[in-house]
C-alpha cells in the first residue's frame, strides 16, 4: 500500500459496538422486569397469598404452576410477579427521595460558599460511616416493618452518596466558562443552577438513580429476608427466600427462583446504569494499556 492510500483509509466504525452492549442488555432486562410488574396488576396465574395445602411443594414445569409451588401451595410465578412490584416501589421510592434530597444538598454544597460546603460534606461523610444495614434494622424495628419504613431507611442510607456525587458534578459544571459569563450578565444563583447546572448534570443524575435503584432492590431484599422489611400480604423476593430457607432440606428449587430474579433485575439495572454512563461521558473511553 502506498502511503497516500494509507492516509486516505475511511474511518472504521468498529469501536461503537462494545459500549452499547451493556446498555442494550441492561435495557432489555430492566424493561422486562418493569413489564412483569405492570402485567401483574392485570393478570396473575393464581392468587399468591392464599394457601392451597393440597398443592404444596409441587415441582416445576407443571401446566398450572410453571415454577412449582411453595410450602403452602402458593404459585411461585404469581409471587415473583407481585414481588416485582415491591422491588420497584421500594427501590425506586428510596432512590427517588435520595436523589431529590441529595440534589438539593449537593447543589447547596457546590454553590453556596465554603461553610455550607464544609458542613454538608462533613455531614455526608459521617453519615456514610454509619453502616446502613444497622440503622435500617433499628429504624425498621422501632418504627415497625413495612414498605414505608424501608423506603425511609433507604432514603437515609442513600442520600449522602447522592450528595457527594451531585456536588462533584455541579462543581465541575460551575467551573466552566459559560457560567462565568452568565454571572457577568447578572444572572442570579438560583437561575444559574436551574437553567445551566441542572441540565448539565442530568446525565449524572439519571445514571446514579439507576444504580441506586438497583442497590435499593438488593437492600430491600435483605431487610425483607431478615423479617424487617415487607411482610405478608405484601410479597418480596427476600421474604420468599426466607420462607424457602425453611424448606430447603426438602426441596431446593424454591431457594433458587427468587434469588435469580433478584440477580437478573439488579444486574440489568447495573448494566443499564453503566451503559448510560459510558454513553453520557465519552471522555472516559481513552485508555492506554
Amino acid at each position, binding site marked *: 500500500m502506498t*502511503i*497516500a492510500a*494509507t*492516509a486516505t*483509509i475511511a*474511518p*472504521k466504525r*468498529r*469501536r461503537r459496538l462494545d459500549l452499547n452492549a451493556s446498555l442494550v442488555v441492561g435495557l432489555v432486562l430492566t424493561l422486562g422486569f418493569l413489564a412483569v410488574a405492570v402485567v401483574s396488576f392485570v393478570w396473575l396465574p393464581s392468587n399468591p397469598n392464599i394457601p392451597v395445602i393440597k398443592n404444596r411443594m409441587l415441582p416445576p414445569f407443571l401446566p398450572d404452576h410453571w415454577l412449582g409451588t411453595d410450602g403452602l401451595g402458593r404459585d411461585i410465578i404469581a409471587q415473583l410477579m407481585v414481588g416485582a412490584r415491591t422491588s420497584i416501589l421500594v427501590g425506586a421510592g428510596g432512590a427517588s427521595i435520595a436523589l431529590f434530597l441529595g440534589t438539593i444538598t449537593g447543589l447547596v454544597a457546590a454553590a453556596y460558599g465554603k461553610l455550607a460546603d464544609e458542613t454538608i460534606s462533613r455531614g455526608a461523610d459521617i453519615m456514610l460511616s454509619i453502616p446502613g444495614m444497622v440503622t435500617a434494622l433499628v429504624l425498621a424495628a422501632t418504627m415497625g416493618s413495612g414498605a414505608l419504613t424501608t423506603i425511609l431507611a433507604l432514603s437515609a442510607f442513600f442520600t449522602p452518596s447522592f450528595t457527594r456525587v451531585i456536588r462533584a458534578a455541579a462543581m465541575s459544571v460551575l467551573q466552566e466558562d459559560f457560567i462565568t459569563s452568565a454571572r457577568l450578565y447578572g444572572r442570579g444563583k438560583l437561575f444559574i443552577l436551574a437553567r445551566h447546572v441542572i441540565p448539565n448534570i442530568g446525565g449524572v443524575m439519571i445514571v446514579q438513580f439507576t444504580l441506586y435503584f438497583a442497590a435499593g432492590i438488593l437492600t430491600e431484599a435483605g431487610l425483607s429476608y431478615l423479617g424487617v422489611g415487607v411482610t405478608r400480604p405484601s410479597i418480596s423476593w427476600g421474604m420468599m427466600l426466607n420462607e424457602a430457607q425453611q424448606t430447603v432440606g426438602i426441596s431446593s428449587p424454591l431457594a433458587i427462583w427468587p434469588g435469580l430474579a433478584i440477580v437478573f433485575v439488579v444486574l440489568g439495572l447495573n448494566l443499564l446504569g453503566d451503559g448510560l454512563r459510558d454513553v453520557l461521558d465519552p471522555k472516559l473511553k*481513552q*485508555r*492506554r*494499556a
Partner: protein
Amino acid sequence: MTPPLSPGAPAIEVKDLVVTNGDVTAVRGVSFSIPAGGRMGLVGESGSGKSMTALALMGLLPMGWHTHGEVLHDGADLAKLSDKALSSRRGRTLSMVFQDPLSSLNPVRRVGDQISWVIRHHTGADRKTAEAQTLELLRSMNLPRPENLVRAYPHEISGGQRQRIMIAMALACYPQLIIADEPTTALDVTVQKQVLRLLNSAVAERNSALLMITHDLPIIAAMCDTVAVMYAGRIVEMGPVQEVFRHPRHHYTRGLLDSQPTMDNIALDGSSRLVSIPGMVPPLHDLPSGCAFNLRCPAATDKCRTDMPELGGETSLKSACWHPIARADEVAAQ
C-alpha cells in the same frame, strides 16, 4: 554500556511511518534518518503528529494505536518487535525524556532509586554499585549535593531538578539515541536554558544521537544539525538547520518563521512585524484533500487541492510543495 555502533550505521532510520488507530491517522508517512551522534529537530504545532512519532519509535503508543512502516535501530526493525524485545532496548540503546517531569516520575519512590533501577536493570549491577554510579552520574551533570538529591521524592524538588533527574535516567546507559519531547516546555524560562545546556553537554559526552521535539524554533537552531518540519502528520520540509531557517522553501515553514516573536539569528529578511498564519491546523480526522496546508497557503493552486506533494528537491533541503519558495540566487541563476 551499549557497544559502539558499527561505523556508518545511523542511530535510527525511519521509513514510511504511519500511526493510526483505525479512525484517525496521526502520522501519515514519515521518513527520516539520524546518523550516529547526529542531532535532528522535529518541529510542529500541536496536532502535527510529532509526539505520536516519538511514541511510535519507542513503542509506547496509547492503546488502540498501531504502527506501520519501518523503524530501523540497533540492527532491528522496532516496528516489528514484541513489547518484551523492545523493552530490552528502551532505556539502554534508545531512551526518551518527557514533557512534564512531575507527572512522569513515580511519586512514591525516591528519585535516586528510580535512576539506580535503570542502571541495575540494564547492567546487572548490584544495588550498591548502582547507587554509587547514580551519584557519579549526578555529579557529572553538575547537580549540587547529589547525596541529598537521591534521597528526595519527586514532589520535594524543583521542576528543573526533576527534569534533570529524567535526563539522568534517560542517559544513564549511554543510549545510541535519546528522544526529547518538549523537555523544557513545562519549565520556567530561567530554568529552561540550564536544562538545555545540561542536555546538550550530556548528549555530546556520550556521543548519543538526539531527536529534539519542540515547537520552539530557537532551541532547534541552537542545538540541532538538521530539522524536519511536520504539518498534519507529514514532514513538509527537512534539511540542515541553517538552510531551512534561512531559506525555507515550504510556505508553512516560512509562516512559522515569520510568526516567531523574537529571533536574533533567524529572520534575515528584516521584517519585524508579528504575522501569523491565517486559519487553523485542520483536525486529523477531517483533513483537506491534496496538500493539507492548501487552505492556509498564500500560494495554493488547484493542483494543491487535489494532489499530495512528496518530499523532493535537488539539494540537501527537501520540501513537499508544488510551488516551493524560490531562493533569490536560484532565480538569478536561471
